[in-house]
């Protein structure tokens, strides 16, 4: 599903070069739930933005669902992002002026779905996160946990092949965080491929596999044998 090979990202200014990712490689299979951990500045977010096609990389290769994204135009990357990827952000990133249904509608609009198709998908995704009754509410009228559920519903509405989550419980209290992580696990059980960035070891432990990043490099992989992991995800 997601295959990065010897991928590097260097931020350059006139006086300094910062290596956010160095020769970074990762292979995430379809249906896998991978946690990416590491201290602040280790390159977790850079990985997420490159994986989400929000940013270009300096060198290496990146295959997303069989498509080589190197050299793609901004427009091509936007389309691929819209079709294949769902984002769950730490800060939810809901648009405050739009109600819940209209927030979920945003990626569907760019997908050029018909009005009926968009309505169906909004209804289904809201049912999936248990917020059908809140379709006309505005983000400010919801709790943090509910807002994150809306963000998940928005990410799911387009039936993405890959869910990228950035500290999905970082802004939530313990009880709300538990609800959200249970929802993510449920999505995984239903077959979603999920890559979650977190610095919370307890949260990372809920994933099938943990990839640890330090200074833009993978330093430690889950010792769990690949075969056992594959058996668990039914490959």
């Amino acid at each position, binding site marked *: 599903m997601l295959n990065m090979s010897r991928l590097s990202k260097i931020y350059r200014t006139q006086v300094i070069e910062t290596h956010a990712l160095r020769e970074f490689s990762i292979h995430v299979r379809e249906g896998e739930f991978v946690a990416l951990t590491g201290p602040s500045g280790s390159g977790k977010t850079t990985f997420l933005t490159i994986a989400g096609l929000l940013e270009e990389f300096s060198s290496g290769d990146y295959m997303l669902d069989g498509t080589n994204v190197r050299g793609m135009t*901004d427009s091509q990357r936007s389309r691929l992002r819209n079709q294949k990827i769902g984002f769950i952000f730490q800060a939810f990133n809901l648009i405050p002026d739009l109600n819940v249904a209209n927030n979920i509608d945003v*990626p569907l609009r760019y997908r050029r779905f018909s009005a009926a198709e968009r309505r169906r998908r909004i209804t289904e995704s809201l049912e999936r996160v248990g917020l059908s009754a809140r379709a006309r509410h505005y983000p400010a009228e919801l709790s943090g946990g509910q807002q994150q559920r809306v963000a998940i519903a928005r990410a799911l509405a387009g039936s993405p092949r890959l869910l990228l989550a950035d500290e999905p419980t970082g802004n939530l209290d313990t009880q709300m965080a538990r609800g959200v992580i249970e929802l993510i696990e449920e999505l995984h059980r239903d077959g979603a491929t999920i890559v979650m960035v977190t610095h919370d070891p307890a949260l990372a432990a809920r994933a099938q596999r943990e990839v640890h990043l330090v200074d833009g490099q993978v330093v430690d992989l889950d010792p769990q044998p690949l075969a056992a992991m594959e058996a668990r995800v039914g490959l």
Partner: protein
Amino acid sequence: MFSYYFGLALHSLRRNVALTSLIVIAIGVGIAASTCALSMFRAYTADPIPQKSSQLFVPHIDSLSPEYRERGDKLPLHLTYQDARALLAQHLAKRQAPMYFTGSTLAPPNPRLHPFQVLVRATGADFFALFDVPFQYGAAWSATDDEARAEVVVLGSQLNERLFGRVNSIGRTVHLGTRDFRVVGVLDAWAPSPRFYEASNAMQGRVEDLFIPFGSAIDQHLPPWDNMACPPFSSGPSQWDAFLASECVWVRLWVQLPTAGDVQRYRRALDGYADEQTRSGRYHWPIRTALLNVGALLADEQPVPTEVRLYGLISLGFLLVCLLNAMALMLARFMTQSAEVGVRRALGARRIDVFLQCLAETAVIGLVGGLLGIGLCALGLAGIRSIVGGATVAFVYADRVDLSIAVLAALVSTLFAGLYPTWRAMQVQPAWQLKIN
């Protein structure tokens, strides 16, 4: 998708009312100032009779002795009475009408009302057909009436209403000066803008209260009230006859020449007449003639005043300043929306989607600004009319063309001003925005 962008734009206007209002006001004020200037400029330069302006001409002869010329090297605006009569007698035009502006005292039919002064145009029967003057009742007097110097009158609609109420007054008489005139026609609303057939300071843009035959006015010894240049002349037994025989220029002659051939023929005849007068020893300077059409005449007699040109330039500069302000405000507005742009980009919006969304928002702001500009312009023009007063700028109004231009200008200029902010919004890096958030 455009309806989606349009809906988002309307939604967005309500998001930051203070900033939106500032942008709309900046655009509205700029558009109002420039639309007012445009209206004034158009009032001075518009073709007042587009359907036949190319066929209407005024002959000029350089008959005024150089020491009495008030217009420098320019030809006199009018003809002498004798020259006008001589040209009329040649019957070279399809239609022709001599005219001058005068006035008299009118005694209302109702004896309880006091006599009052009226503005009079003495002219020929062809005047009304020449200028497509509309009639409410009756019609123009006839050529026979002209020849007979008949005491007939065509009333303006306002004077008719003042004298008789809103009724058909054909056949009634009005007492003008010392004689009774029979009403043969009542004009419908007619206010050519500008009042092109004669520039007259005394008129200040107004159409006369009534019209009488040229010969009849001469018989009544009604003197010209304006537009006269007059070398000294010796008076004989009759001061009036001496005036008519003098070299004073005060009569305007309008002719209708439908074809280029007609124009050439008339020009030749005019030159021939001037040469003949020169040979007779009347002029001791090289004689010149001219046959000016409506546009040339207006440019000569009623050029756009320097103040209006200056106001136009200032208002364009003002519009530019307003648009620069609007651009800065829009830039601020779009930058505050960077986070939303970042989220939309993350959810699949292409740069062109962001561009179109911002463009729709800019267009809506431009439209609202344009509408505000129209309202402010209407107030501005009303203010100009009330301050300047009289009828000098009574013809200054914003017509449908001006208003359409205002809205279009608001749209185009706002879109233009919004290009840079929109381009900046397009460049928002979603990764950075999401990292910041």
